């Protein structure tokens, strides 16, 4: 893995700098007149997003509240509000008040939506994503989990691993969470029993090994009293491991090094006529790229060399995963929003059909004749057919053939696209291998999913499929659009809408893609 350069470097005769702040390297601090940032406002070396799942009954809000109370930078007025409020469990403040949000939810006593909380320890930013535990909120948990680096699964020591825990683990696996922590809470209510904990720990290991987690760790706690949350428990000397906080601080931070093949989904094209600049703006979603390297647009199959990697803070020599930049190419290959740039030997699939696993989010069930769009990294493609094949039973983890699905279901299905889109499998490149399924009429996000297989071949040739050709669209509907590259996005938008209308009328439609007509 190449090091991120942090110093000024010469490139093509002009000075370029890489504005990545390398926190642990204090010697690279800016010039002497600059304020002593490191003393006044040290930047934190990274971030960890932590999903908390479990039900209110298991003491989830209390656990996180306790963590905030003991370990972090809570403000005085927040502490005061808590001290003034009602007390629970033998005189402790009600820590759960730090986590519960909306008035409606406070009244119901359950969390119905995901809530985000932020706290800093000395070195690190923690983002706590709190998701509801009840079965009917699988969709909220799945959406919360998709943002997480690690998940805390909270269970009650008296009850052990329940059906719900199994559901949660399956959802974490589906959306790509790689590290899990099983917090066995309320140890005080089982007399701090080691055997009770060990039994649950063993159950968890047996159950979770089949998933591809990189790490699964169990920790015994009592959130109300704070045992093993931020402070080692005196009641459980038999537990030699880290407290929850210690363990969280030891995990690797979010996006610290580029992984996987280079992927650059183009968001928009930036122009500056003053100096003939045409930059492809986007965020590197995998791997890295350097000036001078050859990249290829999977859809048009055209390639070019990276001439500049531009930012307002100066040009970069290299851009890595997570960085938002503009890439200027040495030749104008007519790339627009929706394209995914890659290296020539590790391209995404120009997919016509994808097999996917998805969480159905909408309260409106799947409609085989519905109009759907597939939102991938930066593309929006009309779906020509969506077929549900099976549903995943979250408890047995078995799939059962099905042709319908509704809210909170995990479905396996085949999605045929109205035109090719640059897509990866989720295992290869998560950001270009995940999608939202969008209702074309209401705009609602009806499902979120991951691609398991991306197939470049169209579904079996259907003689009734009507192909909306480029020439056809140029003649009338798009006659007002210029040849300017920025018109391509509008061209595609109109084509999508026509396809959706025809499809709603029962006509199978495909849109002739850019790849089909370019050289």
């Amino acid at each position, binding site marked *: 893995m190449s090091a991120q350069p942090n110093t000024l470097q010469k490139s093509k005769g002009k000075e370029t700098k890489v504005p*990545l702040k390398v926190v642990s390297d204090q010697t690279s601090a800016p010039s002497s007149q600059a304020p002593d940032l490191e003393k006044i406002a040290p*930047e934190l070396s990274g971030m960890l997003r932590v999903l908390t799942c479990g039900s209110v009954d298991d003491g989830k809000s209390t656990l996180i509240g306790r963590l905030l109370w003991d370990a972090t930078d809570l403000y005085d*007025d927040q502490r005061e509000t808590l001290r003034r409020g009602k007390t629970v469990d033998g005189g402790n403040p009600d820590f759960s008040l730090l986590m519960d949000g909306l008035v409606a939810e406070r009244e119901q006593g359950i969390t119905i939506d995901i809530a985000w909380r*932020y706290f800093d320890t000395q070195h690190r930013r923690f983002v706590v994503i709190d998701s509801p535990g009840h079965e009917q909120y699988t969709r909220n948990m799945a959406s919360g989990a998709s943002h997480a680096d690690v998940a805390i699964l909270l269970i009650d020591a008296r009850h052990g691993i329940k059906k719900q825990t199994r559901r949660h683990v399956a959802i974490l696996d589906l*959306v790509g969470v790689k590290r899990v922590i099983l917090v066995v809470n309320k140890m005080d209510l089982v007399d701090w029993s080691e055997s009770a904990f060990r039994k649950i720990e063993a159950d968890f290991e047996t159950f979770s090994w089949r998933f591809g987690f990189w790490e699964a760790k169990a920790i015994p706690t009592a959130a109300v009293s704070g045992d093993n949350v931020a402070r080692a428990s005196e009641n459980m000397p038999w537990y030699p491991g880290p407290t929850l906080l210690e363990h969280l601080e030891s995990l690797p931070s979010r996006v*610290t090094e580029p992984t996987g093949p280079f992927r650059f989904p183009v968001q928009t094209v*930036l122009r500056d006529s003053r100096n003939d600049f045409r930059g492809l703006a986007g965020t590197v*979603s995998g791997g890295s790229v350097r000036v001078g390297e050859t990249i290829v647009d999977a859809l048009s199959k055209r390639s070019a060399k990276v001439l500049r990697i531009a930012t307002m803070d100066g040009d970069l020599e290299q851009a890595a995963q997570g960085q*938002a930049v503009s890439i200027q190419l040495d030749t104008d290959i007519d790339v627009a929003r929706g394209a995914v740039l890659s290296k020539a030997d590790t391209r995404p699939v120009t997919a016509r059909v994808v097999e996917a696993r998805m969480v159905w989010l909408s309260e409106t069930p799947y409609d085989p004749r519905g109009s759907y769009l597939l939102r991938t990294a930066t593309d929006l493609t009309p779906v020509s057919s969506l077929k549900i094949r099976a549903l995943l039973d979250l408890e047995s983890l078995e799939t059962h053939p099905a042709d319908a699905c509704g809210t909170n279901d995990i479905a396996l299905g085949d999605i045929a696209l109205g035109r090719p889109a640059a897509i990866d499998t989720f295992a290869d490149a998560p950001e270009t291998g995940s999608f939202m399924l969008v209702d074309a009429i209401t705009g609602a*996000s009806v499902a979120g999913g991951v691609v398991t297989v991306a197939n470049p071949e169209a579904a079996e040739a259907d003689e009734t499929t009507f192909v909306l050709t480029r020439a056809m669209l140029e003649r009338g509907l798009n006659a007002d659009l210029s040849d300017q590259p920025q018109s391509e996005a509008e061209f595609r938008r109109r084509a999508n809408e026509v396809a959706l209308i025809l499809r709603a009328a029962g006509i199978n439609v495909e849109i002739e893609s850019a790849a089909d007509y370019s050289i």
Partner: protein
Amino acid sequence: MTQPISHLDLLEAESIHIFREAAAQFRKPVLLYSIGKDSTVLLHLARKAFWPAKLPFPVLHIDTGWKFRDMIAFRDKTARDFDLDLIVHTNEDGAQKGINPVDYAPSVYTDVMKTVPLKQALDKYAFDAAFGGARRDEEASRAKERVFSFRAEGHRWDPRRQRPEMWRLLNGRLGAGETVRVFPLSNWTERDVWRYILREKLDVVPLYFAAERPTILRNGQLLMRDDDRLPVKPGEEVVTRRVRFRTLGCYPLTAAVESDAADIESVVAETLGARTSERQGRLIDHDQAGAMEKKKQEGYF
């Protein structure tokens, strides 16, 4: 081995990504500019997102007529310096009726002079998306806010009809009558905003820095008498105190804190050591329980 990049780098990249997604997906976006520190950061990130091109959308300020004079001067200078397409909108009807923060309850004033004109302006120019500087760490009801926050017709926010957001995917397809508020600073905290202002050496309104200012002590809060429209009640006196502001708004509704922090470094040092969260200084929030959530449902940012 690559060294870890800082959390501010990650936040900056994420915000730029959000700006670009919104600009690409919505027909006519606008940036809501309130002149304060969050807006300053928001604007800076927007410039980074589209550099070297000009901002592809205008900047809108809802002027209640009661902002600190220093804020208005700063707004106009910023618009000139960055060549912004600035739109200033006031609820003329409310202004003519004399709705003001001195004589009216904060909830009435906020509705007439902030919420209503915001809706007026969004409707008048037919903006389908508005960037705002709201952060999830500000207040409990905002902790559940989405990055793309959808508003039904009439700009109403319904917590139960928000779209799930997964991974980094942002679905901006609008249903009939829908508009969206976009929050690029969703994952920033108050401390991040200050750290970033310091790191990027951004200019902010001088009111954030301590200076001798004419103040009145009222209900335990220090108010600055920015002009003589704020009457001095019997028993009160105008005292020159060394104060600064942690948050900026309409001057009769914005409490000052006594402070010696007169430059950005000391402000940041003070803020990072602060023991009271910022909304303490914003008087409208204490109006009623769940105040912010209620205001949001009515269309307040």
